[in-house]
């Protein structure tokens, strides 16, 4: 038997065959390329075309960027050094860096103030954006507007202090009375805040800003990307709550409130933003006496805020409409009153649905802040279009400047959109 067995089986492997690597076409980069770029004939053609396109774009831009000059003092000097070869003249960015970021009139020795305000802003918005952070950080957020105002505009500390006191007292009043009677708490708080501000405002001595710790900087001296950031941040953070209030008002059963909200929303949405800006900068100065004008920055903030609030109101209304009626009825059947039902049941769900829309409006609003350049405010685009391109040294530099502006805006807007996607994933409860 044994013999027979030995003879009938020619070969028996006594050890395990060593593992061989998978076929080259089924692994690593090659596999990825095969599956993603060359999976079919159409795909292959598209890939080749795309590569050719990328090559063409890079071929024409890379020499321009790599050959760029950073240290000359005028466009003429750039052209002299380049002597006909391709190359960008980035020197305008280095030479006018401060003007692009801070505008041309913000005092140089005070640049640390907006810088500090910017850092504080990062701390202040962190707890609003990321819910896992300690809630105590919200104190920073609450104080931030007043501190930032004082840092950027300077002058007497009394003004932001009185504003803060007004808010604190009004908030305390609302806490005490708003629980039982919403209307009393709400309107009482507004009256108290207004009273504190007007009394406090009249108590600030005339020349308080003259010898203040931080020298006062008028709004007209603000500019550059700083102005875009300030307008964007202020208007977004003001228009979201206002927009929610308008959306709720539009759904209200009370005809007066509903009417006001509908008329406001439809009016503002029917008017181009640039018209509102012209009204803010030009028309209003006819009505106010020359020395008692409302600050131009404030006028523009009000107009942009009203504009985007109307849009956000419609986005939120969409979210409210998307909620099943059962949610409203469930809230009622639990015996919750209107504020409680909204705060605990309706709005958390409606706002979650509205996030993409709100972010969309916020990104649009941030880019719209460049429109203020047409009413002769020197935001980033205004600085480029006006003073920088009108200087004898830099007249004629376009791609470098507008490319820089585009890059700055892209960074911010892309960041906002990435955040909103993260937020949607985080809030997704999977039902």
């Amino acid at each position, binding site marked *: 038997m044994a013999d027979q067995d030995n003879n009938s089986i020619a070969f028996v492997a006594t050890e395990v065959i060593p593992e061989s690597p998978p076929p080259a076409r089924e692994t690593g980069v090659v596999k990825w390329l095969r599956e993603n770029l060359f999976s079919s004939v159409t795909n292959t053609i598209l890939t080749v075309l795309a590569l050719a396109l990328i090559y063409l774009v890079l071929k024409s831009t890379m020499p321009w960027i790599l050959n760029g000059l950073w240290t000359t003092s005028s466009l003429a000097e750039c052209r002299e050094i380049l002597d006909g070869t391709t190359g960008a003249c980035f020197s305008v960015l280095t030479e006018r860096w401060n003007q692009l970021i801070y505008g041309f009139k913000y005092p140089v020795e005070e640049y640390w103030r907006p810088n500090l305000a910017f850092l504080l802003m990062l701390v202040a918005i962190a707890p609003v954006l990321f819910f896992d952070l300690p809630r105590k950080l919200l104190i920073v957020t609450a104080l931030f507007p007043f501190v930032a105002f004082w840092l950027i505009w300077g002058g007497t500390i009394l003004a932001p202090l009185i504003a803060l006191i007004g808010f604190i007292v009004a908030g305390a009043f609302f806490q005490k009375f708003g629980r039982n009677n919403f209307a009393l708490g709400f309107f009482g708080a507004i009256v108290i805040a207004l009273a504190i501000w007007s009394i406090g405002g009249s108590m600030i001595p005339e020349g308080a800003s003259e010898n203040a710790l931080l020298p006062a900087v008028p709004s007209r001296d603000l500019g550059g990307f700083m102005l875009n950031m300030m307008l964007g941040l202020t208007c977004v953070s003001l228009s979201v709550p206002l927009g929610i209030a308008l959306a709720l008002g539009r759904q209200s059963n009370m005809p007066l409130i509903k009417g006001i909200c509908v008329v406001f929303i439809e009016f503002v949405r029917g008017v181009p933003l640039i018209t509102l800006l012209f009204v803010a900068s030009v028309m209003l100065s006819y*009505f106010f006496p020359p020395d008692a004008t409302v600050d131009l920055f404030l006028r523009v903030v009000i107009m942009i805020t009203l504009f985007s609030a109307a849009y956000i109101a419609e986005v939120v209304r969409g979210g409210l409409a998307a909620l099943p009626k059962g949610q409203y009825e469930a809230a009622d059947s639990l015996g919750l009153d209107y504020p409680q039902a909204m705060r605990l049941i309706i709005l958390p769900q409606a706002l979650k649905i509205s996030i993409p829309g709100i972010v969309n409006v916020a990104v649009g609003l941030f880019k719209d802040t460049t429109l203020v350049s047409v009413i002769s405010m020197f935001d980033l685009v205004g600085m480029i279009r006006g003073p920088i391109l009108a200087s004898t040294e830099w007249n004629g530099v376009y791609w470098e400047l507008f490319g820089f502006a585009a890059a700055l805006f892209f960074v911010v807007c892309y960041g906002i959109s990435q955040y909103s996607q993260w937020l949607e994933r985080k809030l997704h409860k999977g039902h």
Partner: protein
Amino acid sequence: MKKSVLFGALTVAGLAAGAAAAGTLDDVKARGKLNCGVTTGLVGFAAPDANGEWEGFDVGVCRAVAAAVLGDPSAVEFVPTTGKTRFTALASGEIDVLARNTTWTFSRDVDLKFTFVGVNYYDGQGFMVPKELGVSSAKELDGATVCIQTGTTTELNLADFFRSNNISYEPVPIETNAEAQQQYLAGACDVYTTDASGLAATRATFEDPAAHVLLPEIISKEPLGPLVRHGDDNWGDVVRWSLNALITAEELGVTSANIEEMAAGTNNPEVNRLLGTEGTLGEMLGLDAGWAKAAIMAGGNYGELFEGNIGESTPIGLARGLNAQWTNGGLIYSPPFR
């Protein structure tokens, strides 16, 4: 509620504005600063430099007025205005004087209720075309696309010129000079038209200025000058004679270099009256005796301002041409100081 408060505030403010119409000269003195409207940026005429200091030919006029009134050429708040906001800024009192290469026209003077106090630059609208187009006269521009700044008199001149010559064109409206340059260089329009000074300045910044020509036709008169609101003649006089002081100074050979010497007294009675060592001209205006001296020292006389900002030694390289003194065959002429 918000709305009613707003309207209430507007009404009160409107009434207050009507009541508080004191003399501009007193306002400026009380404020200690002159609010001067300038352009948001035009090469050679007004633009802030890398340190944020405004400089330029129009800026020089603002500084001269500030020096005459307040004795300090830096006591100026420059308010940048666009072609669309400039007149409302002046009419609403946001600025005291507008020195923003603004053309003196009938309707602006009469209908918009402004007072042009003089002319600091005689300009005219011209055309610039690429040399390769082979055009030698504006009348050959039939069917051309033309880049044109909106909200300016150039728009109207252009329409008039083409209509009276019975040729057609297609306008490409643009907002600022900088934008126009880029559009023109990119080939979005065949022709760029604006004031000849602007064309020369623009061409000077091109990579290859020789590839572009200015056509010989000047299709309009564009006397550019500072202006103030109607109805305050005292203030109008102050601005008018500050400008005239600069012009007269050049005519009489008073420069920022020799002014100290001349202010000590000369044999020329007009120089003495101008510089306040004789007569009471300053007092009549409601200013110091040394007002004109301060105005001239702010940036030099008219000729020095011209040479320093837009003249042939600068990259803009404008010749004096019409803007030479009348004694040299130009139109710059000031009434006498006596």
